[in-house]
């Protein structure tokens, strides 16, 4: 740890830190608080507390279906993005491969292209190829967006892998496929776990691409969007709170996994 503004009073520095924390967490805390409010209006003060919004949400067939659909899309996206991402990372680290930096730049491009532009271009693309909007198109769009994260995480891990590990496996009788399955892949496991969780989270969170590529079935973000347009109600707060808790838990667990892999 370093000290940057050691001439400043310590309390001032710490106060600014707590201001930042409040700025981050207060809106979320308010949102969660209102989800327990026993009234139909999203406003303070809260006179009576209730769990009825949660009960209502968990019995809401529409909500549960949207959850299942979002999770399905996220898992398929993760599967494809992982395969493509690992393959690109392997290509980039392959001996004698030309234009590695070009491959890397192209693979990372979808992460920096604005989501809206990306979504519109994908929409035109599927129209040209006559691919119908719907599940397949959504997965395609989400996968393009998720690949860069897998590439970057796997690449970082691959670069820390001793060169001799694959040689050692080959030497002990493994052909190149067996060496990959038994040595390279297990070595990549922590990065894969982190990358996959990231894929799931970005896919579940994605609204813009889904909006342009989706069919009649609604994903979770689209359902929330539709509900908000129908007017704010504590029920939406309950949905948001559930999503927040689940994604935060998954995200923190992934962070824990990748952190452990670094030691």
């Amino acid at each position: 740890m370093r000290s940057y503004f050691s001439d400043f009073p310590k309390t001032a520095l710490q106060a600014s830190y707590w201001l930042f924390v409040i700025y981050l967490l207060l809106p979320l805390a308010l949102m969660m608080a209102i989800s327990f409010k026993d009234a139909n209006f999203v406003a303070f003060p809260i006179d009576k507390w209730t769990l009825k919004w949660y009960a209502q949400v968990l019995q809401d067939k529409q909500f549960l279906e949207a959850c299942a659909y979002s999770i399905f899309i996220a898992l398929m996206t993760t599967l494809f993005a992982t395969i493509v991402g690992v393959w690109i990372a392997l290509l980039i680290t392959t001996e004698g491969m030309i234009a590695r930096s070009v491959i890397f730049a192209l693979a990372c491009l979808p992460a920096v292209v604005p989501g809206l532009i990306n979504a519109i271009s994908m929409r035109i693309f599927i129209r040209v190829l006559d691919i119908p909007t719907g599940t397949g198109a959504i997965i395609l769009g989400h996968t393009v967006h998720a690949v860069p994260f897998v590439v970057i995480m796997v690449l970082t891990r691959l670069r820390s892998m001793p060169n001799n590990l694959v040689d050692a496996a080959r030497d002990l009788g493994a052909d190149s496929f067996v060496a990959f399955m038994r040595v390279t892949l297990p070595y990549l496991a922590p990065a894969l776990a982190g990358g996959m969780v990231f894929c799931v989270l970005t896919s579940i969170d994605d609204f813009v691409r889904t909006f342009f590529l989706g069919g009649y079935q609604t994903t979770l973000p689209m359902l929330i969007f539709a509900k908000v347009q129908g007017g704010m109600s504590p029920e939406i707060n309950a949905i948001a709170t559930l999503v927040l808790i689940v994604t935060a838990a998954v995200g923190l667990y992934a962070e824990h996994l990748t952190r452990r892999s670094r030691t």
Partner: protein
Amino acid sequence: MQPVVHFRNVNKSYGSSLAVDNLDLAIEPGQFVTLLGPSGCGKSTTLRMLGGFETPTSGEIFLDGQEISKLPPNKRNVNIVFQDYALFPHLNVRRNVAFGLELKGMASDAIHKRTMELLSLVKLTDFAERMPGQLSGGQRQRVALMRALAPNPNVLLLDEPLSALDAKLRQQMQIELKSIQKTTGKTFIFVTHDQEEALTMSDVVVVMNAGRIEQMGDPHTLYAKPRSRFVANFIGETNFIEGKLKAIDGGLAAIEWNGSVVHANLNGQSPAVGNTVAAALRPEAISVLSQKPANTIAVSGRITQSIFKGDHTSLTVSLANGQSVVAQLDPVALSAITGDDVWLTWRENDAVVLAD
């Protein structure tokens, strides 16, 4: 006897640079062979070609009479111990050692039995369930060795495996390696740049320089009768006697040096009389006398430096021709003082004529 490994006219070039230059090398089974040389001399490339990690640009490599230079590593009955051990970090010690056996399709009880036998050979049975990250350098070294020995290879290749260990542990491992080689009776091919390591363990040392074999022989021969200036310099400490060859007489060369004519063993060389020749003379072969000896040839000089080294004293003697000669001295034999004038003499056959 058929050699277990035979390199025939093997070349390896990277672009325009030649890493291995027309290598011809036959290795007898059951020997501890060391490839010795400075970095970039081609020793590691030679080993990697045998392991299957490099393909020769031209030439043939035979293993047990079979040409293998185009086979992938997994199709060759040799195993390698890597410099950085290359243990699989996600597998415990037992699974690391068992890796090659599993790929051979051996039954799991047989694998377990052999793995534990091997681990007990290096006293690591208690560490079988540890991960490589939890082991010390010496323990990792032993695991890597046993992993490579497990599939029962014809030849074991060792690529500078001791270089990451500290001096004390390295000496201990040298003795252990040699004894494992003796017990298993396998051919070991060991690559190192450390001449002491080579002398300690090897039956045969192959000294390499610039992709070529400089000299090959048992450690004693290499030390006592180096063929070239490179070998004499690389192995141990050496003084060079350089001068005009006056005559050849009964296997001895008479060389004009520092105002007198000194003798050296011809060492299988046949230099032309009148040319300049060089001979190597080990410091410990030199006797340092305070008086000119009556009936042997001796050269005179003055002690310019005296360093006590425990078991001996290292003297630097300056000669009239400006050259410095290093001699070793029993510390109790003579109390040599810097500035003393001394006479140096040696048995004629202890100085050996070099090829270049």
